[in-house]
């Protein structure tokens, strides 16, 4: 087992959420790394879809933008934005979706709009993009974000995207742990911790009283193969995104 950093395990853990044959809506950054890692390891039949309209794409290199020429060149089909949003995303034809966020609440709702008030915010974030429709249309959502009281908040400054709730599931992969939606209640619960991270560590990095699953397991360390493929992808995603 090679040495690795938590940012790498975060990507690997996110990749493991995907299953062979699924279609997945991918964004740039960690989502691209995770999805391409999954496709090159356990899920060769994974169907990558970018919201730029590139369907079933298989890029050699990690894209910087979701509209990189290679995504169109290697796609089975490249469609217009009305097509991708209305015919593919909205009717639930894409199984899984990746999202990031600046803030998440106990229900799995996300903020990517502002820190502070809406008018003259402390930090103006990019905004919604396709996140609200991804969150409501894909039945499986994977969120990746760094774990801290700043990101895991009691109340969002702005609700950009809603956790879908029934009929869907969410996995939140951080640099400390994995949290999941549960059938038992409408809150996220801690199901796995990273190696060397205790349940206490996770609770302390969370602003609300985080629910803990009856059994908490430990995320398996990246395999040599996972690390090898991940590192071959280049342009490492930032730990914080």
């Amino acid at each position, binding site marked *: 087992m090679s040495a690795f950093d938590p940012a790498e395990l975060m990507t690997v853990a996110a990749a493991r959420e995907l299953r062979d044959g699924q279609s997945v809506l991918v964004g*740039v*950054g960690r989502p691209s790394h995770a999805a391409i890692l999954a496709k090159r390891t356990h899920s060769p039949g994974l169907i990558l879809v970018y*919201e*730029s*309209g*590139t369907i079933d794409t298989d890029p050699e290199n990690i*894209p*910087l*933008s*979701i*509209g*990189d*020429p290679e*995504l*169109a060149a290697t796609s089975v089909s*490249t*469609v*217009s*934005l*009305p097509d991708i*949003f*209305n015919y593919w*995303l*909205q009717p639930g034809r894409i199984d899984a979706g990746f999202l990031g966020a600046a803030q998440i609440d106990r229900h799995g709702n996300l903020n990517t*709009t502002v820190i502070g008030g*809406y008018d*003259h*915010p*402390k*930090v*103006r974030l*990019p*905004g*919604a*993009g*396709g*996140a*609200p*429709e991804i969150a*409501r*249309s894909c039945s499986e959502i994977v969120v990746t974000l760094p774990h801290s009281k700043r990101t895991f908040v009691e109340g969002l400054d*702005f*609700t*950009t*995207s*809603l956790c879908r709730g029934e009929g869907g599931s969410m996995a939140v992969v951080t640099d400390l742990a994995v949290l999941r939606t549960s059938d038992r209640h409408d809150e996220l619960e801690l199901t796995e911790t990273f190696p060397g991270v205790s349940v206490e560590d996770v609770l302390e990095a969370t602003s609300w009283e985080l629910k803990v699953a009856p059994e908490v397991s430990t995320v398996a360390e990246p395999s040599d193969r996972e690390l090898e493929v991940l590192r071959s992808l280049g342009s490492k995603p930032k730990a914080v995104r």
Partner: protein
Amino acid sequence: MFLPLDQAIGDLLNDGDSVAFEGFTHLIPFAAGQETIRQGKRNLELIRMTPDLIYDQLIGAGCARRLVFSYGGNPGVGSLHRFRDAIEHDWPAPLELEEHSHAGMVNRYVAGAAGLPFAVLRGYAGTDLPQHVEVAEIECPFTGERLSAVPAIRPDLTVIHAQQADRRGNVQLWGIPGVQKEAVLAADRSLVTVEELVDEIELKPGGVVIPHWAVTAISHVPGGAQPSYTDGYTTRNNDFYREWDEISRDRDRFLRWLAAEGLADKAEVAR
């Protein structure tokens, strides 16, 4: 209908207009946007799903009064600093926002292109977006299901970049097509900058044709999408996208860049 870019922007874009420079991650009409800065247009309502660097430049240069958008980031890099500075600190001027999700913006263009006053979609419900923007609840007359309605976008002018125009003014673009066809059809007037003038359009795989009578003016501007790209003609200048993070982070550095590019001097921005 064939005009030099400076004349096209001069003739078709007026101070105070609503204008969409569209192109989703591809074919972004940078040259036309920069010509807009050069001509010192003011009080524009800028419409664009992804403001990207092109609107960061227009906003920073003081051209915009209002921004209609759905995602304001530098793709894969981070923040749009001029966009943030305008919203967070009113510099160089306050920026009014009309903020949607991507699906909302897409469907607003679709409604505009289709001559309808609104579009229906699933979305918005439960989010904070409707508190800040015009979204309505609408009931399906057959099932009673409640959905969201968004108003059509009808820009005074839409500007896009494409690969080719033929002698009659038919336009062809290919690669990631985005929402450009809809944005052109939704607009009152349209300007297309193209890489190449050809005798006759020969349809390409993935080619989208906009027939000549839906286009107001065409300007021949090779490389007009740089640092974005034109599939088949130019490549994306990823380095400039990264470099922009540095240029735009600081007001003075940005003003020096504007001056060095011959787009505007400091006095003009503050005007």
